[in-house]
């Protein structure tokens, strides 16, 4: 199976570190055909241009293995819009927002101009969700209702304390997808039972998690071959293929 891992951080930051070589080695080991990469740490909150350039370079070099998501901190105002457009024009295919690292409340209007750009380009938006309290699933619902043309990916499914919110939120917005990293298999299972398989995508969040753990927990779920195909491959392809 040509698995797509929807969430990987690559590069060396103040906290995280995952080299390209190590990433490709892991992908090969666990049969991950492609993955969505985005920058780490300070490249998400302040050094956006540097972070995006790194991702752009990797995508150009390994275009058969990587999709790249851009980062752009909304506090940079007009500059953040320019930076996002620049990164998208150079081949990145999505936007990653991280309201905890970037310092705003996920539902705040400060992020709307960036989402407007995402909407114009037809790209998906990945949002980190979970504790702290400024990156919550119900805050993501507000964004999803304000920007109905955008497909949002609920990163980590509210892990951990906000797991209770995942299904109530997703049943209210067709344009929210769940990304499975860190979430427990029981929660993923009940989500699939309640809302079907069509809005669940596999993600590992390495180096913050282990690829083996993330792949194995999906295997526990006793999914049909067709369901696995959706979760590991085709749902991600749908999201990534929407760019105008």
């Amino acid at each position: 199976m040509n698995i797509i891992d929807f969430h990987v951080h690559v590069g060396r930051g103040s906290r995280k570190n995952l080299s390209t070589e190590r990433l490709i080695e892991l992908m090969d080991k666990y049969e991950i055909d492609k993955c969505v990469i985005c920058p780490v740490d300070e490249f998400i909150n302040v050094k956006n241009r540097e972070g995006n350039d790194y991702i752009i370079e990797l995508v150009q070099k390994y275009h058969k293995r990587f999709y790249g998501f851009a980062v752009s901190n909304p506090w940079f105002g007009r500059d953040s819009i320019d930076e996002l457009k620049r990164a998208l024009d150079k081949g990145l295919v999505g936007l990653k927002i991280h309201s905890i690292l970037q310092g705003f409340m996920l539902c705040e209007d400060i992020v709307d101009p960036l989402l407007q750009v995402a909407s114009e380009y037809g790209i998906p938006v990945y949002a980190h969700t979970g504790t702290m309290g400024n990156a919550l699933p119900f805050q993501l619902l507000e964004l999803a209702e304000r920007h109905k043309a955008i497909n949002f990916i609920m990163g980590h499914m509210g892990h951990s304390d906000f797991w209770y919110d995942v299904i109530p939120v997703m049943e209210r917005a067709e344009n929210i997808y769940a990304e499975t990293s860190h979430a427990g298999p029981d929660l993923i299972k009940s989500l699939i039972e309640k809302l079907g398989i069509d809005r669940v995508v596999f993600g590992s969040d390495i180096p913050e998690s282990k690829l083996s753990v993330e792949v194995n927990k999906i295997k526990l779920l006793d999914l049909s071959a067709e369901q696995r195909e959706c979760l590991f491959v085709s749902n991600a392809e749908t999201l990534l293929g929407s760019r105008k």
Partner: protein
Amino acid sequence: MIIDFHGHLFTEWKGMKGMSPEEIIHDMDENGVIRTVVFTLNGFWGDFRKANDDLIKLTEQYRDRLIPFCTVHPNEIDKSIAEITRCKNDFGIKGIKFHPWLQGFSVVSDEMLMIAEHADRLGMILVFHDGTPPYCEPLQIANLAYHFPNLKIVLGHGGLKDYYIESILAVKKHKNIYIGTNFSAPALERLCKELNGSRILFGSDIGFGAFSLKYNLDIIHSLSISKQQKENILFGNSFSLLEN
């Protein structure tokens, strides 16, 4: 004339002596408060039926001044449904107070939805402690308002300090949400502007100490809002809600 929509009447809590009904009424008289809605404290754990009986007994002689709201525990769903019916039919109780993190339940749980449905049927008001992660964010509570558009729901603290952004989104979206004033003055001014002074209910959280009524009234008096809006917050909004 002032109505205080948020007080706690209890004899003792973890070794701390509560204010007596007479002491609360004395404070009310000194500050021009004609009525105070009072909740239990001890009832948020242990025997809630006994706590409701205690509160009803404590307020028995003063029902023109002290308006008791009952509480129940969603984790004991059958007992809760029966208790709500008893409080409404036998004692004319108009509302139910919840404290999700103290009581240990999520406001988006199935049990809470069942209670909300029952309260809706009986025309009772729901009041929540809100603003504290992970189980009582304003937008989580607003999910009840979404499912039961005729049910009157009060966010007791308007999101507390950090979650008023959620509160404002919640009241704008749901006409059946009301907001207690127990949060910062600048946030209150912003909220007041959004709602033109409607659906905001003065609440002091009286019962814990000597200063809460004065302190919270002072916040209201400090607001740069119209006289009419101030009167609505201090009296009119609560009066209409309690009389309907």
